[in-house]
């Protein structure tokens, strides 16, 4: 018989060890100890009061140890307190476009500054100071252009150059074309990006068309392709 659980309580252990002739398998655990103690009481080795005291003491030790094992981690956990809430970020589809300056004059002057060439009917004047800027977070956008003026006395052509985008996806530019009241692609295949380019306007007049003024209101639109 060997119950090492008695090491903590040496006094009682000594008494129980006098019961070596009592064969109680240690698989009986605490109940085995109880039986040994009962036999010890029967034999007068220990008193009933001491046995109760022993088991009470053992229960107290085990309870205190269990409490510490459970509550100490809880104590550490309670040293902080947290609160959470939900924050939602929504990004709408955004496509923006701007052009500057707001007005462009293409003058085909007469007199000393005339651009007319003797023997030619066609006169041209160009402006490339306009800048088109855009930004889009949608896939595959394009920019179109149209004019409010119809019919036109003179021709107005448009083209873009020096296209740059951030980070990439500047798109494709189309070749120079006449502006009409029907939307015409100016830049295509614009990826999610922001960027800018120069707009080249060319006014074309025929000497035979005489003099006058074409006042265009140009509309540039960024749409999904």
């Amino acid at each position: 018989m060997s119950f090492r659980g008695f090491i903590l309580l040496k006094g009682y252990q000594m008494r129980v060890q006098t019961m070596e002739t009592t064969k109680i398998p240690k698989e009986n655990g605490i109940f085995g100890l109880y039986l040994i103690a009962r036999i010890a009481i029967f034999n007068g080795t220990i008193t009933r009061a001491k046995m109760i005291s022993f088991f009470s003491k053992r229960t107290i030790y085990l309870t205190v140890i269990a409490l510490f094992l459970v509550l100490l981690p809880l104590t550490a956990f309670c040293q902080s307190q947290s609160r959470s809430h939900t924050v939602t970020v929504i990004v709408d589809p955004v496509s923006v476009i701007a052009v500057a300056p707001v007005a462009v004059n293409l003058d085909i002057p007469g007199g000393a500054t005339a651009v007319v060439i003797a023997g030619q009917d066609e006169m041209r004047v160009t402006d490339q100071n306009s800048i088109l800027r855009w930004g889009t977070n949608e896939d595959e956008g394009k920019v179109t252009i149209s004019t409010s003026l119809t019919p036109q006395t003179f021709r107005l052509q448009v083209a873009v150059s020096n296209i740059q985008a951030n980070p990439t996806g500047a798109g494709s530019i189309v070749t120079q074309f006449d502006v009409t009241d029907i939307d015409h692609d100016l830049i295509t295949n614009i990826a999610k990006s922001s960027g800018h380019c120069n707009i080249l306007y060319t006014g074309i007049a025929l000497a035979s068309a005489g003099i006058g003024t074409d006042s265009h209101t140009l509309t540039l639109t960024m749409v999904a392709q």
Partner: protein
Amino acid sequence: MKKLLHRCLRFSFYVVSLVLLIYAEGAGQTIRIRGTRNPTLRITSGIPDGQLIDVVNTGCSLRYSTPNYRTWKITVGTTCMNQSFTLRVVTTNPQRGTSAGEVTLISGAQASDFITGIPSNTNRANATLQYTASATFDQGHSGDEGNDRHTVTYTIQRQ
């Protein structure tokens, strides 16, 4: 029997002391989120050849208290499934403690200091939360990427 009773009393004393210890450690510091419970920041416009315009929300605040010992701090962290856009938070006017500056909330990252040096005996101090949402054009939009739904957690703890 009298001795047993005495031991039981002593045991009770230990248990009560332990409970008081837990109370002193755990119940002394508190933190609450006030104001707009779950704010939404919606980006709706941008600058051509620039970027989308940031959206700011200041509808929430923290209210925090500390017990009568030690110095405390507040940390902030977030979890967000498939985060696509940028969310930052800052407090510029904590009534107690010092703002640690603007924190960029990245899902799953370690919690960052938000307010430090909160002294003991702080009683219901306030700090306004200023959230800023930002995005770039190339990051797309919520229709493609989904909304960023952050669970932002503020923790008050010993410094």
